[in-house]
């Protein structure tokens, strides 16, 4: 463990590139075709202790910051969108525990377990009957003495069957109103999952985001000691959109790289600069540039909030709208970039059996605007826009 904790960020990045260009890329098509969990990739991540990069060093992790974790997500996006999404979703849950659990001895030792056993964490937030609103729960933790039980009807739990634990949002007790929520960690051995819907989608097929009736039990220490309202606004909301925005940028970048390669190959063959496609490529890189810029700006701001150790700053409407803008802009720009990259490549980008194929990237990219629907996010932004004076 000592040797691992001394890994530099540069080393971690090159490890991620190595795994990305080998194991992740090799299985990406099969994962997509079969809509199956990327087992090979996650075995490699566990083997290389990449699931605990955000766990502080004192608990055996690498103690990376959020900017660095987002960069690892971007790198994975270059190789496989589904693998990158799962990796990001795991990091979001880890961040919730790192930011909001350390005051409890249970969660201190849980962070050690994440590092030691390379636990993969999933999340059950949405619930059937609340219309996709994360800030409302119907289910509740039923506390009896030191233990609890819970039952939740979740329309979506990504990679539920492959996770070592699931963080579940619920009402804090039987009488609590819908918005008085907590998050509880339930380990695989404490869980029963009854499938209620499958996951046969256009893209992000490897995330296996099926629906389940989740039944769980455990000790009440497993309830995160911070109200979910704070966990969401201080951590889950910004970390989600920043890691997703980063990996979507990675997917877009991967598509631009393929387009660039195809233009270069064209030029090799003809010895002439392919004028129109080369200009389209240059334009395409401009769109990618603005996508990267938006993510970087918001990341810088969130990093400074984390560094100031005053997470309450993340509640400010001005910051929240920016984070929402990262989500809405990146999820729409990714479609734009991948689509334009396909035009640059031409028919070989459209083919499934070409080395320039963008089929998977294009299908994945359309999912970005739908997961946490952009219209819902714009609705929140519309409200906050009325209140704020300057953005």
């Amino acid at each position, binding site marked *: 463990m000592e040797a691992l904790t001394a890994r530099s960020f540069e080393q971690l990045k090159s490890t991620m590139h190595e795994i990305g260009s080998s194991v992740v890329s090799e299985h990406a098509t099969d994962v997509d075709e079969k809509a199956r969990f990327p087992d090979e990739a996650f075995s490699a991540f566990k083997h290389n202790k990449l699931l605990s990069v955000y766990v502080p060093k004192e608990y055996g992790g690498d103690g990376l910051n959020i900017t660095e974790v987002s960069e690892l997500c971007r790198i994975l996006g270059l190789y496989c969108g589904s693998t990158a999404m799962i990796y990001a979703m795991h990091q979001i849950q880890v961040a919730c525990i790192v930011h909001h659990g350390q005051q409890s001895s249970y969660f201190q030792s849980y962070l050690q377990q994440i590092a030691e056993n390379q636990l993969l964490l999933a999340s059950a937030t949405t619930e059937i009957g609340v219309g996709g609103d994360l800030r409302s729960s119907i289910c509740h933790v039923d506390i009896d003495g030191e233990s609890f039980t819970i039952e939740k009807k979740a329309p979506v739990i990504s990679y539920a069957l492959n996770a070592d634990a699931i963080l579940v949002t619920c009402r804090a007790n039987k009488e609590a109103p819908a918005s008085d929520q907590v998050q509880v960690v339930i380990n695989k051995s404490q869980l029963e999952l009854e499938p209620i819907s499958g996951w046969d989608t256009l893209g992000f097929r490897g995330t296996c985001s099926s629906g389940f009736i989740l039944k769980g039990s455990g000790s009440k220490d497993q309830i995160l000691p911070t109200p979910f309202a704070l966990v969401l606004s201080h951590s889950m909301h910004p970390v989600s959109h920043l890691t997703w925005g980063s990996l979507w940028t990675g997917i877009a970048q991967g598509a631009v790289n393929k387009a660039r390669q195809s233009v270069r190959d064209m030029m090799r063959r003809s010895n002439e600069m392919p004028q129109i496609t080369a200009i389209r490529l240059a334009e395409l890189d401009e769109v990618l540039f603005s996508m990267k810029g938006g993510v970087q700006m918001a990341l810088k701001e969130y990093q400074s909030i984390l560094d100031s150790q005053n997470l*309450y700053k993340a509640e400010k409407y*001005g910051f929240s709208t920016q984070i929402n803008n990262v989500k809405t802009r990146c999820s729409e720009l990714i479609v734009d970039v991948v689509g334009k990259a396909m035009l640059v490549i031409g028919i070989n980008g459209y083919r499934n059996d070409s080395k320039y194929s963008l089929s998977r990237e294009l299908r994945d990219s359309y999912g970005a605007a739908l997961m946490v629907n952009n219209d819902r996010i714009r609705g929140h932004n519309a409200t906050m826009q009325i209140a704020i004076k300057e953005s």
Partner: protein
Amino acid sequence: MSIDRIRNIVAENVKLAKNIAEISNNDDLYSLGLTSLTTVNLMLSLEDEFDVEFDDAMLSRHTFESIAALNEAISELLD
């Protein structure tokens, strides 16, 4: 007393889970039914009532979480 005026405005703008009389100044308004949309209605009504403008730096969950927090914000704006 501005706190009574604030209590009236909260009662008018927020669909509360309890009667306003049963709500103490330190109760968490979010768990009693305050939503992001009603937060804005509440803010606009408070701005009209006290003839003030909320500063962007004040616009966070924290400012609206209780009647006491709102009172603190309004007092700061009136100073």
